[in-house]
């Protein structure tokens, strides 16, 4: 079986061997990057600089959460507001692969800027097995380019260090628990964030709609878990579809967006079964989403498994 203590011991040694001088670590507030940051700080101490980029595609309340989380760790923490840059870069980009690549490159350019200021040559990332598997290469087909692997630009100055490359999420969680990290049980969130939960071209309004819808889905599912009505699914979120349909609100015709709710059960994201959520809970989420978000008048539930679907829609 998997031995978290042994893993941490080996990973710390490996980073000490690989990294000369300073390194930066890209953090998002998720489990993977938090574990990589903790292991990195155990290996490098003050020579590790954590960089968090607010892309504008983060979950509701995420910026505050991350500031608080890294405030408690023994490393240098840099917060970068890059909302404008990211929205600017994605103007006119509708293809999911292109979106991921634009985002991947933007991240790297920002990290390169920080690394230059900090005089660091290394970039530590919380890349895990599904990221590079799905990104493809060689014989392996590209399912989607993960921003931290397939989305990397060809030309880059930083040397990449990936201590969690051979782990899956359930194993990363075991390491997180072993290290006593409070984020151990957080649900996964994609690196490109809400940008891949708005189908097609994004704009600030659409991102705001899906952010609110995701928050409602999270709130209601987590409440149902606390009340013991359901077992916590692996991942649960909302997707904004580029489809509008006719509705009626207060005797007036409406022509609004459609939100898809997605909730799946998995251990490693390599296969996933849709969650058999109770209808009362689905109804509650649909009612809240359509009542609280003005531009949405229809909600559907995604009942596909992976394969053939993937977990995120893009």
């Amino acid at each position, binding site marked *: 079986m998997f031995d978290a203590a042994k893993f941490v011991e080996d990973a710390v040694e490996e980073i000490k061997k690989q990294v000369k001088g300073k390194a930066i670590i890209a953090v998002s507030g998720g489990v993977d990057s938090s574990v990589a940051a903790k292991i990195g700080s155990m290996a490098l101490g003050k020579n590790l600089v954590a960089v968090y980029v607010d892309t504008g595609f983060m979950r509701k309340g995420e910026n505050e959460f991350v500031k608080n989380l890294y405030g408690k760790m023994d490393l240098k923490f840099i917060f970068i507001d890059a909302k404008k840059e990211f929205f600017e870069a994605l103007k006119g980009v509708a293809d999911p692969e292109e979106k991921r690549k634009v985002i991947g490159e933007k991240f790297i350019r920002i990290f390169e800027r920080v690394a230059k200021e900090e005089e660091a040559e290394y970039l530590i990332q919380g890349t895990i097995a599904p990221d590079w598997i799905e990104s493809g290469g060689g014989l392996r087909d590209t399912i989607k380019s993960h921003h931290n692997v397939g989305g990397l630009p060809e030309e880059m100055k930083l040397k990449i260090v990936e201590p969690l490359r051979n782990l899956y999420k359930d194993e990363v969680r075991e390491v997180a628990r072993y290290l006593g990290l409070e984020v151990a049980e957080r649900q996964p969130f994609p690196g490109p964030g809400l940008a891949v939960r708005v189908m097609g071209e994004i704009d600030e309004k659409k991102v705001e709609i899906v952010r609110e819808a995701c928050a409602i889905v999270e709130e209601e599912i987590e409440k149902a878990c606390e009340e013991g009505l359901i077992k916590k699914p692996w991942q649960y979120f909302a997707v904004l579809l580029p489809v509008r349909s006719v509705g009626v609100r207060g005797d007036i015709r409406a022509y609004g967006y459609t939100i898809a709710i997605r909730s799946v059960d998995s251990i490693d994201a390599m*296969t996933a079964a849709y969650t058999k959520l109770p209808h009362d809970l689905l109804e509650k989420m649909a009612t809240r989403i359509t009542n609280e978000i003005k531009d949405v008048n229809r909600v559907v539930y995604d009942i596909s498994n992976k394969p053939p679907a993937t977990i995120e829609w893009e």
Partner: protein
Amino acid sequence: MKVYVIDNGGQWTHREWRVLRYLGVEAEIVANTTPLEKLKDADALVLSGGAPRVGLQDKLGNCDEYLQYANVPILGICAGHQFMARFFGGECGEAKVPEYGKVEIEIIEEDVLFKGLPKKMIVWESHNDEVTKMPEDFILLASSENCRVQAMKHVKKPLFGLQFHPEVEHTQYGNEIFMNFLGEAKK
């Protein structure tokens, strides 16, 4: 025990590695172009699945060499299974009804792989092609509604083929199938 996972480019090649390691086996993923002489210490081989259509190509790295000369138990999965069937004279082609995700299979012959397991089980699949004609020296072990050759075995040698994926979490009894296979390698 040492088992090499021959990487034919599957999404779940690394999962095969993980399951084997969890079963206490020393496992290593290697490219399918690895010369057989570098795999001399192998107690068994797993031929992984792969990207679309690789099972239908004339050559699948050095898989033909492994099948002919390796002389250890071999488990072909998905594209690896299809290639095995073709290598021994069977035929493969596009599945009339491809299967992705959850499928029920029925065990026809328990043999080694399904020893001690129920007659019906849920497995997960992801294939566009399938074995349309099993080679003569093989016997049929399991079928599903839309795919006859879900599992097969060579009549004399410890060579096994599975169309479904025992290495993924959602397949029932996946670990047991691997343990039964590894039992052959211990002989």
